[in-house]
């Protein structure tokens, strides 16, 4: 059994490629669980970071520093009454959150966490990702229409108009990255997510810096479009609470509302991982060309372990600074336990076999995490756009710029 597992883990194919249904199922469960946990962590981090941006403390009550807040929220949402408005179209109302959730989770099938750490490697990977993630527009429209109420309908219309407007610029930016993958000896590029990262590896350059500043501009267009695509601030018009209460999910409550939230955060992580794969080098560690050699490999492979030890250290500082009142005893023990778990993970990550296998996943997740933090930062910094400004930016700025970047990239690609 153990031999089987280790032999599988050291093979160099994805479960999909090997046609191994069992391992595909295992990977799917891991990704499903991982994304759900990441969404919960993101939820906590967002509330905490936003609070600190505004010089508040944020969640502090449930668990040490509010660490258990997302779990408390989940339990609260699970036990909350589920209200279906009497006017609503029951079936469509029920179906809409499922569609959004499926659309945003199915995307993870092709996300390349490492050269072999993907559920499967489709040869149309990036097209699959763009196509499936844009299916969530359907869910938005269905939710707004089925609610049969004013706010959701307006929210759904706005949301769908915004999502499809920015998808055009997004697609064109992706094309200019795909174009860069074909700049090799055979002259044939790839749409496979793993292939795109390998192309960056063989060209020894992130596509972000390719044909500077063209890759940079394409990436910028994608970075703007992906915020609009996921309906996040400063493009969160569909959920503009000051004018539309909550947009298309105004009428949803309880668990179904939480499905919308889960879908939204999962979609944010998914588009961030597209950006990471296409422009920021996917699973590659920083400076794979400059800092080469055994020593640097070792240094970079130790970073995940040190990161977790550092987090554990911060947790222990928190334990030491906890008030010494009996009221805080449970919280202190909890935080110490959390720190101990983090430290243990850090120590496990130092073990050579784990270290070598986990590296790619770590660097991919770290890059995605930077993007997730940017999302929070945007939300704390930028004021919300007006709807006509939003459409103007989408159609009159991003679209022409992305066509121009595509043409210039093509000309550069032919000439050099």
């Amino acid at each position, binding site marked *: 059994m153990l031999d089987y597992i280790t032999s599988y883990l050291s093979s160099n194919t994805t479960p*999909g*490629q090997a*046609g191994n*249904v069992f391992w*595909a*199922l295992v990977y*799917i*469960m891991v990704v499903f669980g991982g994304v759900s946990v990441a969404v919960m962590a993101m939820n906590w981090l967002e509330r905490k970071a936003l609070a600190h941006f505004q010089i508040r403390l944020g969640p502090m009550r449930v668990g040490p520093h509010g660490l258990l807040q997302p779990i408390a929220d989940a339990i609260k949402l*699970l*036990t909350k*009454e*589920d*209200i279906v*408005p*009497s006017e609503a179209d029951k079936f469509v109302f029920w179906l809409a959150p499922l569609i959004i*959730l499926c659309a945003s*989770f*199915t995307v993870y*099938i092709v996300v390349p966490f490492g050269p072999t750490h993907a*559920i*499967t490697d*489709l*040869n149309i990977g990036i097209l699959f990702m763009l196509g499936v993630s844009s299916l969530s527009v359907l869910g938005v429209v269905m939710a707004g*229409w089925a*609610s*049969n*109420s*004013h*706010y959701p*309908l307006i929210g759904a*219309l706005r949301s769908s*108009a915004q999502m*499809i407007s920015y*998808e*055009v610029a997004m697609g*064109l930016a992706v*094309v200019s990255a*795909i*174009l860069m*993958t*074909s*700049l*090799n000896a055979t*002259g*044939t*590029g790839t749409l496979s997510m793993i292939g795109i990262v390998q192309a960056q590896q063989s060209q020894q350059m992130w596509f972000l810096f390719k044909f500077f500043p063209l890759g940079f501009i394409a990436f910028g267009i994608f970075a703007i479009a992906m915020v609009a695509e996921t309906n996040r601030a400063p493009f969160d018009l569909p959920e503009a609470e000051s004018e539309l*209460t909550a947009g298309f999910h105004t*009428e949803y409550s309880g*668990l179904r509302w939480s499905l919308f939230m889960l879908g939204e955060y999962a979609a944010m992580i998914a588009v961030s991982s597209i950006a990471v794969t296409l422009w920021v080098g996917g699973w590659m560690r920083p400076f794979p060309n400059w800092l080469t050699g055994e020593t640097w490999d070792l240094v970079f492979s130790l970073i995940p372990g040190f990161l977790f030890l550092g987090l554990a250290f911060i947790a222990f500082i928190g334990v030491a600074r906890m008030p010494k009142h009996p009221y805080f005893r449970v919280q202190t023990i909890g935080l110490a336990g959390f720190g101990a778990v983090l430290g243990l993970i850090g120590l496990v990550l130092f073990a050579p076999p784990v270290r070598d296998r986990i590296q790619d996943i770590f660097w991919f997740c770290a890059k995605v995490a930077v993007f997730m933090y940017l999302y929070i930062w945007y939300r704390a910094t930028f004021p919300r756009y007006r*709807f*006509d400004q939003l*459409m*103007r930016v989408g*159609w*009159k700025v991003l*679209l*022409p710029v992305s066509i121009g970047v595509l*043409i210039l990239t093509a000309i550069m*690609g*032919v000439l050099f």
Partner: protein
Amino acid sequence: MPQNYIPIFIFIAVVGILIPITLLAAKLVRPDNPNRAKLSPYECGVDPIGASRGRYTVRYYIVAILFVVFDVETIFLFPWAVKFKALGMFGLIEMLIFLAILVVGYVWVWQKGALDWV
């Protein structure tokens, strides 16, 4: 390779099992005592006026139509981008002609004011 696509169906099956289980579990634990005010459409406490599926501006349709045009264009660009270097100058000029036709349409749409959202 076809077997690369099998995980998609496994994934759909997993989602199709997990989510109904969660919904069912929620159904067992949550309270259920609806009343008329709770079930009425949300309108900040005021009774809703008029049909909610009323008229809305025609610009949403224009945006949808333009989206179809430009998205199909993007899909056409993908195969070219994959074989870009192999096609070389021929492919580039061909695509520039294609894009030029599209840009003419884009400029016309812009001049007509279809991109303005008043």
